[in-house]
């Protein structure tokens, strides 16, 4: 899970989940404090989900944060 998805693909990470921002890749401090955990849950759940997906090589997966925010 990283915001630098191009770099991750370049060094041949195979399952890449696109992060939020470099200094907080799995969270979003700009949302209301009580909602921030929902962002992290969405990102973590996506990472778990991606572990069950077959890939051929470096593949970037987005996280749908619309609902979490």
């Amino acid at each position, binding site marked *: *899970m*990283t*915001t*630098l998805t191009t770099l*991750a693909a*370049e*060094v*041949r990470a*195979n*399952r890449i989940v696109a*992060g939020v921002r*470099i*200094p*907080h*890749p*799995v*969270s979003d*401090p700009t949302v209301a404090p009580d909602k921030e*955990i929902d962002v*992290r*849950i969405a*990102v*973590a*759940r996506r*990472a*778990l989900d991606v*572990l*069950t*997906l*077959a*890939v*051929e*090589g470096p593949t970037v997966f987005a996280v749908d944060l619309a609902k979490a925010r």
Partner: protein
Amino acid sequence: MRDVVSPNETAQRTSQGPPVRVVHYLNQFFGGIGGEQHADHPVEVRAGAIGPGRALEREWDGAATVVATVIAGDNYVSTFASEAEVAIRSALEAHRPDVLIAGPAFNAGRYGMGCVTACRAATSLGISSVTAMFPTNPALAMLESRGLIVLPTVETALGMPTAAKALARLALKLGRGEAVGTAAEEGFLPRGMRRDVWHEQTGADRAIAMLKRKIAGQTYRSELPIEIFDSVPPAPPLARLAGVRIALVTTGGIVPRGNPDRLREYNSVTWRPYSIAGLNDLTGDAWEPIHGGYDSTWAREDPDRIVPVDALRLLERAGEFGALDDRLYVMVGVGTSVGNARRFGEEIALDLQKRGVQGVILTAT
């Protein structure tokens, strides 16, 4: 800056002293003991040059001499590497050479491993060493081969004359204690090492000069070759998340407050596992970011923003996967050399495997 010649390098034409003393390592085949049926032959030391060693001596024409040849069977040396290393080390202690030459091993994997073992034995005694083999010889994938001076050869012994010439030249230099240039200058395989040198022009001047040459269509050589990264076949997907043990790994440098292991903020040389057993949350009073490469304001407030322990605990409790492993693996991914990063990955993967972890979430800043 690896393509710059160090200033003392040109002034090193030493006068002919006594011949350089060489110990040469060969497998059972090139050592004249026999073929595959003798591959279990233990380490044996014979006086003087044998087989390829004679070709080396012809190149030297008296400037160096093979004082002893160490021979070991391919099976023996690859099965009993540590015993072989001890035996080679005692041969080196007995003969005190100026340099060890191993091989050339071409594309023979077990022979390549023997050469790596011999070079390691020499290194452990402070004796210079050089070997030669095909660049994708499996022995070069071993951790043990890192940092060794390896000259490239073709795949088969047809390349013996060229390999002998190259080995003889570089071994003479090493044996005389002369400064060794860069991989590109000396023709050995790049070791991923950098050396600081003084240069009369600043980096800016050199970059402009390089750009001008490029624009003019002239040849130029980068001082910082682009790394070619290994391709790793993707791990098969998990069939289900139920019952699966998941571990967290991060390059974001989140450590217990006070950084008890003094992990570096930059140019990481090690990783550490930290226990998150029973923790529902990484809090800012127990954990802190020490990564020197990102604005840590948000991570300092809540380290879960880098490593989502809180979210994964909730998902674990909700039964969305088996269990979160007790270990959080921490690295600081800034200015870290690819060589070190590769080593961290290999070491962490072994530990994960031992702990029965089936899935890993790595967060990177």
